[in-house]
């Protein structure tokens, strides 16, 4: 059983990341729960969701000690670093979070998602870049499953937009696979 937290500013596509990942894992035939943060939230505030993927029944959908975190902004790092499972991994959007980790049992993987997104021509796909990197690093699902999950969710979107998303996923994965983790 693996628990992953996706966290960042509202508008960075954080909930979408978790949602797409959860649908992909479900279509892979695994048990899954998706729990969005639900509080008295406000526009511009932080957003997060927890996805649990398992081969057996999932008891708690809550991220009491996540194995992985995909962190898009600094407040989210402050919120989640302390609760991570021992030996866990944090994937960071390094354009927005430059801070060092304070725990030495955790692995930090930094992805310049905004730089990559600009290269691809749209900052709106930083979430797909991070998701591509996440999938490549964790092997919890495949990029194809993610794409299938995405088309299932955003039925009827233009082919061009889907292509851009695929590019984002591929570039994010590529960044990890090249081992270029500066």
């Amino acid at each position, binding site marked *: 059983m693996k628990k992953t937290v996706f966290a960042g500013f509202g508008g960075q596509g954080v909930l979408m990341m978790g*949602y797409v990942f*959860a*649908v992909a894992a*479900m*279509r892979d035939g695994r*048990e*899954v*729960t*998706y*729990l*969005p943060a*639900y*509080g*008295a939230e406000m526009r511009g505030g932080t957003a997060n969701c927890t996805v649990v993927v398992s081969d057996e*029944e999932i*008891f*708690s*959908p*809550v991220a*009491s000690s996540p194995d992985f975190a995909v962190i898009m902004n600094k407040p989210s790092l402050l919120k989640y670093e302390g609760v991570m499972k021992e030996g866990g991994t944090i994937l960071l959007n390094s354009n927005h979070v430059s801070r060092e980790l304070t725990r030495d049992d955790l692995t930090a993987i930094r992805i310049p998602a905004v730089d990559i997104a600009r290269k691809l021509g749209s900052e709106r796909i930083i979430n797909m870049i991070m998701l591509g990197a996440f999938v490549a690093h964790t092997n919890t699902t495949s990029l194809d499953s993610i794409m299938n999950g995405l088309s*299932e969710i955003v039925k009827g979107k233009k082919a061009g937009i889907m292509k851009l998303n695929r590019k984002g996923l591929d570039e994010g994965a590529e960044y990890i696979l090249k081992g270029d983790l500066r």
Partner: protein
Amino acid sequence: MDKKLLMRGSQVIGETAIRAGCRFYAGYPITPQNELPEFMSGAMADLEDGTFIQAESELAAINMVLGASMAGARAMTSSSSPGISLKQEGISFLAASELPAVIVNTMRGGPGLGNIAPSQGDYFQATRGGGHGDYRTIVLAPAHGQELADLTEKAFEYADRYRTPVMILADGMMGQMMEPVVLPDPINLAELPPKPWVLDGADGRPGRLIKSLILNTMEMEEHNWKLARKYEIISREIAAAETYMTEDARFVVIAYGTAARIAKGGIKRAREMGLKVGLLRPVTLYPFPERVIREMSRSVKDFLVFEMNTGQMLDDVKLSLEGRSTVHFYGRPGGVVSTPDEIAKVISSLYYRQHLEED
């Protein structure tokens, strides 16, 4: 592609209600269940014969449901704890008038305005009638996404079969969470048993009357006994509970809803430590599955009731056991969601304190 869908709990309830033939929804907004009326507003608009009303208040909503039910519709309303309190007068009227209706309570922390986090503080209110007078409400307690669908379908069936209001007791976490669900096929409304009591115009037939005002005391008493007999039949026919790892258990946790799924995780961990622990999860809270609990007391001398409140179902467990076994309690009120590890610790400390590891 298989029929499994990843769906938000609120949406599962709404979509299943429509498939179960619900054609009338009235409600008033309150967090954390607004996704349900939001869904119903769209879904009802897509139907030729669907009606969605955002009422001016909770009181108006429940009475609109009462009216729609009188006219024969499968009708539903939903709210969260403080809003459910406001609906209680209408629920009492539904019970008295023997009208079917489905009421969803997505419980939040309380009392008062409380907060918007998942809680189980409304157990007493739900199972003891909630409103005034001598009546009960069928209360169904889903614990996961699939059961939100299964029990919503059942809720409409029970409401019609027994002509009584049925409450689905969910919580804020269930409403928000997405899980894989296989939805039931839509029913054919024309195939439902006829309702020979509805008020749909008396053209060509004698008039009918549905009311809850019965001034004659003897008549009122007879009506009270009639309702009581109905509740007895309901208790015999639909009480339900799930058991998990209870076959050889020396210690059994009793929990429902979200608390039960967390407890299951705790029990699995306790089993890994070699403790003989199981779970009994009431699926119906009214009627309470007292017979299964009483039977279990033959082999189990220690029960732990775990609730997300300060101890409410605890009373029903004690009443069921009639002193046959020891009942321990662990509660997390206020909207706190425990972890399976926490429950495993509570289980193991009680297990050893009661010397259950000895043969």
